[in-house]
């Protein structure tokens, strides 16, 4: 596959190129792929590996000529979740970084728009982290709000 040839490492996975990179290699790799036809940044996804203690960030890119999907994967420390922003290469990464910041609590240095995105006034832990107990939260939050029972068939 073209992206594996370009970067000199990685493996083919279900017809896509999966390339494991170190954090400091990522910027160069994205730039190189962008220059060589991977001009569509598809999305930025994040996986929480609770037992390994790290977050995996996956940068998906697409090449229209080769019809090739490249996934650039990096690992960052779960307890010190800080990453350099890539929004200067593809501007649309900014929005994905906002979402990942909100859902996983990863801070992106250089992104100035890490404001609340989908959740408003969210005071708790980021909800997509594996140690966030969604069922318990639902019980404590939504189930505890009382029903408002008026008298039967009443009016003013």
């Amino acid at each position: 596959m073209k992206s594996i040839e370009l970067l000199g490492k990685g493996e083919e996975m279900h017809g896509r190129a999966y390339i494991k990179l170190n954090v400091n290699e990522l910027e160069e790799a994205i730039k190189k792929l962008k220059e060589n036809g991977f001009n569509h940044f598809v999305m930025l996804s994040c996986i929480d590996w609770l037992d390994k203690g790290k977050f995996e960030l996956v940068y998906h890119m697409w090449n229209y000529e080769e019809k090739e999907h490249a996934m650039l994967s990096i690992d960052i420390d779960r307890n010190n979740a800080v990453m350099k922003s890539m929004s200067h290469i593809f501007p649309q990464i900014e929005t994905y970084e906002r979402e990942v910041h909100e859902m996983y609590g990863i801070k992106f240095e250089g992104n100035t728009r890490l404001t609340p995105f989908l959740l408003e006034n969210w005071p708790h832990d980021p909800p997509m982290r594996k140690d966030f107990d969604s069922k318990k939260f639902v019980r404590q939050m939504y189930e505890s709000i009382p029903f408002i029972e008026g008298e039967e068939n009443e009016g003013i």
Partner: protein
Amino acid sequence: MGLHNGDKMMRYEEWSKLARKASKKSLWMVHFCTGCGAVEMPPVMTSRYDAERFGITSMATPRQADVLLITGYLTVKTLRRVIQVYEQMQSPKYVIAFGSCTINGGMYWDSYNTIKHLEKYIPVDLYIAGCMPRPEGIINAFIKLMKLIDEGKARGWEKYQKYYDRYKENQRRVFNFEIKEEQKEEKNEEH
């Protein structure tokens, strides 16, 4: 001397009965379709099921509408907008909640950002169960709502006025995702 008080009440009753008769035959709705179920509305309004023969038309703004039809799940963020829309409507106003997500959360029962019971935040006159309900279900619900209006039982808007502070308190809690301290401890033990 004026009318006797009882007569006045009678006359008021008669007038409101007439008003209800007119109101039930001309239900203008504004449909709030952010979650899902918006696709069920076009067949209801167009040639296939033709809701206009019951006097049901869809209106462009909440000011002109009588019925708020909420389809599908509501996140906390959309609930805020729903309440704005509801408060802009002019009473008598009715709410129909559509789909099982508005009843108890449906398939989003354990989601962190989806409200579970719509009637904790705004008064709901009628639920349509199902995921998704068919257009027949919607028309059936409207006919049931007409019956309720005729009998004077669709009084959600009066309930909202009467218990306004309690509704507001519930809304404030869910908007700020506020968990009470005693709730935290109690549930932790149970867990």
